[in-house]
């Protein structure tokens, strides 16, 4: 893995609606015809799928931009780093079977081979940029389609191992920062509304993960009977703008009803982050979330959200080890100490501004 200064697609420049939106992602699920799906494939078949996809991608303009990592020969720390950067899923990093991931140099495109489906094509950008994600994922997909035979069914469209993905196989997800909706107890209403609209609201690392620091991923659940452009359009034009409006309204309400409390929350978070000697991952995520809200509310100009985003990544265990190579990390306490030191150093400009 390269240094993280330029790594991690969601560490890019802040885009439109960056007060609420952290990053956007589009993922396409595809399978190759003539092979059982990953869950039924033999080791030899899985190896064949990896080499087939990798060889064809490397030989063509649509796939040459990917650098390939063989997960089986990949050290555990590097696998965890890829999970922390949202380049591969947790399950994919943990599995023992032959599998590989192709990653573009800027890390905006990654292609997992032998995840739940043979191909999981994923494009990710910082800010609200669903269209760019869709374009990047589709460009790779259409290239791959010209060189590989996809599993396809007349009625069900693109076939996937799980019934939740058949059809167009697309999952659009937007990572949102929703602290005010949670503070004003409106999040449950959003969650219910999302469910009624066949959307999922999940935690920081997607499926099965806990919300950390009030970061959530909102994504479509329906992939059948809708064109992929419709799925993209619905989220981009209707749903995400509405959630952004709700969150902004909740922030307004909170600020106007309790301006001193809003400021106090921010100052306390900043004080802890710039002075604490031990910091657990959960606490760091929570406080960085509060910091992000303070920045978006104009409570400080000493730092901006891109720094907060970088720290959200660097406080994760594998990246912490990467950016603090000389700190001992054997125990949880040592990890917490290294995390606290990283935050104190990085947020030094904040210390003087809140004094």
């Amino acid at each position, binding site marked *: 893995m390269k240094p993280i200064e330029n790594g991690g697609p969601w560490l890019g420049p802040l885009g439109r609606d960056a007060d609420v939106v952290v990053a956007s992602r589009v993922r396409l699920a595809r*399978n190759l*015809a003539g*092979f*059982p*799906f990953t*869950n*039924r494939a033999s080791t030899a078949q899985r190896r064949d799928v990896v080499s087939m996809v990798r060889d064809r991608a490397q030989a063509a303009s649509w796939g040459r931009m990917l650098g390939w990592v063989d997960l089986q020969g990949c050290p555990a720390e590097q696998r965890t780093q890829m999970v922390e950067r949202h380049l591969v899923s947790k399950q994919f990093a943990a599995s023992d079977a032959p599998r590989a991931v192709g990653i573009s140099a800027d890390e905006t495109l990654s292609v997992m081979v032998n995840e*739940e489906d043979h191909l999981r094509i994923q494009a990710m950008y910082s800010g609200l940029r669903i269209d760019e994600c869709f374009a990047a994922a589709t460009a790779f997909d*259409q290239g791959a*389609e*010209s060189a590989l*035979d*996809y*599993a*396809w*069914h*007349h*009625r*069900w*469209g*693109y*076939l*996937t*191992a*799980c*019934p*939740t993905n*058949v*059809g*167009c196989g697309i999952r659009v997800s937007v990572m949102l920062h929703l602290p005010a909706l949670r503070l004003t107890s409106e999040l449950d209403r959003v969650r219910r509304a999302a469910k009624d609209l*066949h959307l999922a609201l999940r935690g920081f690392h997607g499926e099965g993960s806990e919300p950390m620091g009030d970061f959530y991923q909102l994504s479509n*659940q*329906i*992939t*059948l*009977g*809708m*064109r*992929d*452009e*419709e799925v993209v359009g619905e989220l981009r034009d209707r749903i995400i703008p509405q959630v952004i409006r709700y969150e902004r309204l909740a922030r307004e309400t909170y600020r106007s009803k309790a301006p001193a409390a809003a400021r106090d929350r921010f100052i306390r978070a900043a004080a802890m982050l710039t002075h604490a000697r031990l910091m657990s991952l959960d606490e760091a995520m929570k406080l960085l979330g509060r910091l992000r809200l303070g920045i978006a509310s104009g409570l400080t100009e000493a730092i901006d959200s891109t720094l907060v985003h970088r720290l959200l990544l660097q406080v994760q265990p594998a990246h912490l080890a990467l950016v603090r190579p000389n700190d001992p990390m054997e125990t949880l306490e040592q990890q917490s100490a290294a995390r606290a030191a990283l935050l104190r150093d990085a947020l030094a400009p904040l210390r003087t501004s809140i004094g």
Partner: protein
Amino acid sequence: MKCDQCDKPAVVHETVITAGVQTTVHLCAEHAAAQMHPVPASVSIAELLAPHLSGKRTLPACGGCGMTLAEFRKHNLAGCSACFDALSPMIDQAIQRAQGGATAHCGRAPARRDDAEARQAYRARLLNDLEQAVAAERYEVAAQVRNSLREVDGIPGQQA
């Protein structure tokens, strides 16, 4: 209940009426086997009933990868492309449930595919489904199948 001949739990219970006198025998697996009584295998009620409920002796399995319906239900994952026809119509219901009631794909299709044969097979299955639905007077299902048939034939029909 204990075995009549030892302290182990009885698994065979036989009631015999001889000349108007009723006697009941309780035996453990070993003594039952020794006396040539058939010992019941440990099967679940669902497995016992399944063949009768579906009207077949065995549950369907995929010829492509061997995936059975029970395995599919357990993990909610198909094993290969052929599962989608082999495990129909149960897999159809699972898909429609997961997809908010949507009944067919629309939109992009791969540029490269050799599908004339698959299309024919799918069409034949739909015709069969339609016949069965009409015979059972399940007209809602029949209408759905008719829509799918129209899609296969490229006739624009209303989307469910």
